């Protein structure tokens, strides 16, 4: 087992657990406050406010956002991991994937 494997595995586990924890917290809050319906916060900027008010939607959105960020984080981890091993070709592949992901988010925001 290489160091890179351990790092990547950790990135995945931490990202997933954090995402699941926020979603479960949101579910508990929803159950604790009957009559309240979770409404999707359209803006990422609204998340901190929703969290501060203990609104379930804030927790759901942050959980989903963390889930989305996990694959991105592991691409970044591989980018640096391969660079550390001086595998420049593989490192540049990671960079290409990262740029494609950024482009995809950009396309979504633009429309």
């Amino acid at each position: 087992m290489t160091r890179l494997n351990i790092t990547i595995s950790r990135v995945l586990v931490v990202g997933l657990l954090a995402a699941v924890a926020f979603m479960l917290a949101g579910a508990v809050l929803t159950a604790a406050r009957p009559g309240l319906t979770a409404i999707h916060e359209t803006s990422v900027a609204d998340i901190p406010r929703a969290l501060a008010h203990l609104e379930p939607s804030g927790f759901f959105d942050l959980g989903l956002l963390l889930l989305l960020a996990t694959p991105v984080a592991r691409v970044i981890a591989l980018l640096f991991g391969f660079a550390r091993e001086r595998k420049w070709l593989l490192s540049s592949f990671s960079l290409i994937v990262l740029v494609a992901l950024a482009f995809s988010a950009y396309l979504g925001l633009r429309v």
Partner: protein
Amino acid sequence: MVGLGGGVFIIPTLALFLDVPIHSAIAASLLAVIATSTTAAAAYVRDDLTNLRLGMTLETTTVTGAVIGGLVGTALSKTVLSAVFGGVMIAVSVYMAVRQRNAKLPPVTDEDLGLLGASYHDRSLGETVRYRVRRLPAGMAASFVAGNVSGLLGVGGGFLKVPVMVLAMSIPVRAAVSTSSFMIGVTACAGALVYFARGLVDPVITVPVVLGVTLGAYLGSKLAMRVKSSVLTIILAIVLFAFSVQMILSAAGIDLR
């Protein structure tokens, strides 16, 4: 457990049985695919089954494919696509089930496994399996198509990647399954980012689906480690066959409900 994200099951279930709008169903499915992929990949990567180098190499074409798939999504008829892929998948699943008998690859004794070759320890066999990667261009092309389908239909594309890795690239099924699991998280992420940015992710639908599949994927990846490769191949063939029949039926306008 067989290297698929589960999108192929989630979308029909949500859209057909629970009357969820197709956009929300695709968005929920993509998030669920990320969750299953991440859960399974965490275990596989730790056990050194995943070929990180191969995964990253194939991701360059698959993510590009996913972005383009999302862009041209409306240009292609889903009916035509479903019918074509259903047909291809039936052929592949039958071929895999038949070939399974003599699927044992010649052992690679060569010290040089190439840039992308790797080895892993198969617990069910109790031995270390070594392999070289063959026909990389074919794999890159297939990954592009898989990414395209992913962006188009909201699935991970594992049902295309695994057969190509096993049949064309001479990768042992166990390594192919874990490498596919690892890759589809990023493929689905490309599509999911678009949906999230557009506010199409409905937490009420997505959160329960994600929590459910995470648990399922965790149990599945535990199970896959203990099952023999031959059994894994047969399960894969059956799953692919069932899926392709469903696709063709829906393309022909037959509703199984």
